């Protein structure tokens, strides 16, 4: 937000409120992703169940933010930085909502997983998920601090996430090949890995929005891409 406050105080309040709702919603998403990951690594079903239950909260934030944005556009006709605040809030909220959904899906699958998963597989999963958790935290901080440089860093780091995802996929595929009995768990784990990567993608989308919000410019060029996805594990 700009330094000087609006002459119309209620307008100022509405924009601040929108801003704080994005931050709260982001906090819930961070929490959901953290719990979803812990549910797998620490085999904690309570965590998984609470992620599933709490997704409703995140959905409600999306609806609330959408209504606030529509009201601002209809009643305040925001311009310049206010316009960018308003439009990016709408887009960020929809990415955050998807992050919530993906965390919920991870948790649903976690509840179906076997108690004892191979350590190297869990380790690979932890590597990619901690990376994504770190990016999500950074971008929410960047939104709060209006930092285009942090947003740019997050955007560029998606490449690393893609690489870690592929390594994790390889572990899952190895696990699948070991024994036919691993088919159920392995399939769930493929989706879990893919969902974590998708959360990384949505985080990158948020980074693009934060960059636009702060600078008024679009991040140019193709998003950095990591190695090509592994299909067979035997390339």
């Amino acid at each position, binding site marked *: 937000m700009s330094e000087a406050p*609006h*002459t119309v105080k209620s307008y100022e309040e509405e924009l601040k409120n929108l801003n704080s709702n994005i931050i709260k919603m982001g906090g819930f998403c961070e929490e959901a992703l953290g719990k979803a990951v812990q549910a797998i690594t620490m085999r904690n079903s309570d965590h998984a169940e609470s992620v599933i239950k709490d997704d409703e909260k995140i959905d409600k934030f999306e609806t609330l933010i959408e209504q606030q944005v529509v009201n601002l556009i209809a009643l305040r*006709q925001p311009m*310049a930085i206010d316009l960018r605040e308003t439009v990016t809030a709408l887009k960020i909220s929809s990415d955050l909502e998807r992050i919530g959904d993906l965390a919920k899906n991870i948790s649903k699958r976690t509840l179906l997983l076997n108690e004892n998963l191979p350590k190297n597989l869990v380790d690979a999963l932890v590597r990619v998920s901690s990376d994504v958790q770190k990016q999500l935290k950074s971008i929410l901080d960047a939104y709060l601090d209006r930092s285009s440089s942090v947003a740019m860093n997050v955007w560029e780091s998606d490449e690393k996430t893609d690489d870690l995802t592929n390594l994790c996929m390889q572990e899952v595929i190895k696990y699948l090949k070991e024994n036919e009995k691993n088919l159920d768990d392995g399939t769930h784990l493929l989706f879990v890995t893919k969902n974590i990567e998708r959360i990384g993608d949505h985080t990158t989308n948020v980074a693009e929005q934060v960059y636009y919000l702060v600078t*008024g410019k679009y991040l140019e060029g193709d998003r950095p891409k990591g190695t090509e996805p592994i299909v067979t594990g035997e390339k």
Partner: protein
Amino acid sequence: MRKNGVNMIKISAKNVDVFYGKKQALFNINLDIEENQVTALIGPSGCGKSTFLRCLNRMNDVIDICKVQGEIVINDFNINDKGCDVVRLREKIGMVFQKPNPFPKTLYENISYGPTIHGMAQSKQEMDEIVETSLKKAALWEEVKDRLHEPGTGLSGGQQQRLCIARAISVQPEVILMDEPCSALDPIATAQIEELIDELKKEHTIIIVTHSMAQAARVSQRTGFFHLGELIEHGSTDKIFKNPDNIKTQDYITGRFG
């Protein structure tokens, strides 16, 4: 008119200073106005935007204490030069004011006045044509064609303003200056004027002073922001309203001023 994808410059203001007595109202204004585009001038009251507009057809001449310095070049000619024929200048540069101000005469006479003093019609028939064309271009013809000899002051506010626009375009000006042309009009009449501005820019260069940010955004392609007698920022309208460079511009258009 475009040349190599770039709009031609119709008016070029260079180092323009304006004084009312000892008080300086405009400080070193440099602004190029593009041909066949709508340029909006915005800024808080007293910022100098109307003063600048009035420089463009030497309307400030009528104020004794007002002194204009610097160059205003239109068609390669500095209108502040001593040899400038102000009557000819105002034929080329028409003006529409905030409050509709039709002459206390008939609709027909309102339009025919300008072409008469500039000797633009050789016959009654030619004058009839000018009146009809002007009213058609001002999107007023259909509403008034059966009462051309009734007083212009009998029209509604929005119609009176379109009559004033018809009067301005009757002498085929190259540039039309508009000083808050819609501030006394209701939203429907405002929309009609805005639609008209969009049409008129095909044949004329338009400069509009407006207090309505939304109107500036809707009607113009270029916007200039004035503050305390200075031109703070000017550029394409979408840039000014989405991502202005200057913090003062941003504070003004987002309602954070003062």
